[in-house]
């Protein structure tokens, strides 16, 4: 059962690399924000998997709650900041 969690964590990391493409090469700033949001929501699942691997789920679940909250607040603050900036469409290809 531990091997299954290990391989699931590795596959989840590869999926995060796929989302990282959009975060690095996104044409606009908001595309990068989408990629960062997707990576953050995958990280909460990855933290629980790491907790299952180390058999300390009771500790890692609190870190996952804090990370989900931090991801939400970061996306809200960044989108509120880029809302005021006009001229985003100049970066569009």
């Amino acid at each position, binding site marked *: 059962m531990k091997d299954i969690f290990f391989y699931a964590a590795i596959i989840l990391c590869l999926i995060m690399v*796929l989302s990282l493409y959009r975060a690095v090469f996104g044409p606009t700033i908001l595309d990068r924000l989408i*990629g960062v949001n997707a990576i953050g929501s995958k990280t909460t699942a990855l933290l629980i998997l790491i907790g299952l691997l180390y058999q300390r789920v009771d500790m890692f679940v609190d870190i996952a709650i804090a990370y989900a909250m931090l991801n939400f607040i970061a996306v809200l603050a960044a989108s509120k900041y880029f809302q005021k900036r006009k001229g985003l469409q100049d970066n569009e290809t």
Partner: protein
Amino acid sequence: MDILVVILLVLGLFFFFGGAVGIIRFPDFYSRLHPAGKLDTAGLLFSMAGMALYTAHDLTWGSLLTALKIMMIVVFVFLTSPTATHAIIDAGFTAGLSPWTKDK
């Protein structure tokens, strides 16, 4: 019980993979938010349900509390992920990004 956990984990990873492919391949900013908002939430629900089931299968109070906490993360993400998606779309709409059309 273990088979159910593995099925839920694989289903969650499948939804995550679909979301990542959709984020890469959709042509436009507005349409990219569709897999980012929906499939990540669905994948998180299935994979977290599998892991909560594996945590709670020895029926002690501590493991049941941990499984309840994992499901509370799912409830929290179900509230916050549409809110974050709506905030990003509102930022793009206010900044004046034009949506993708077929002839562009």
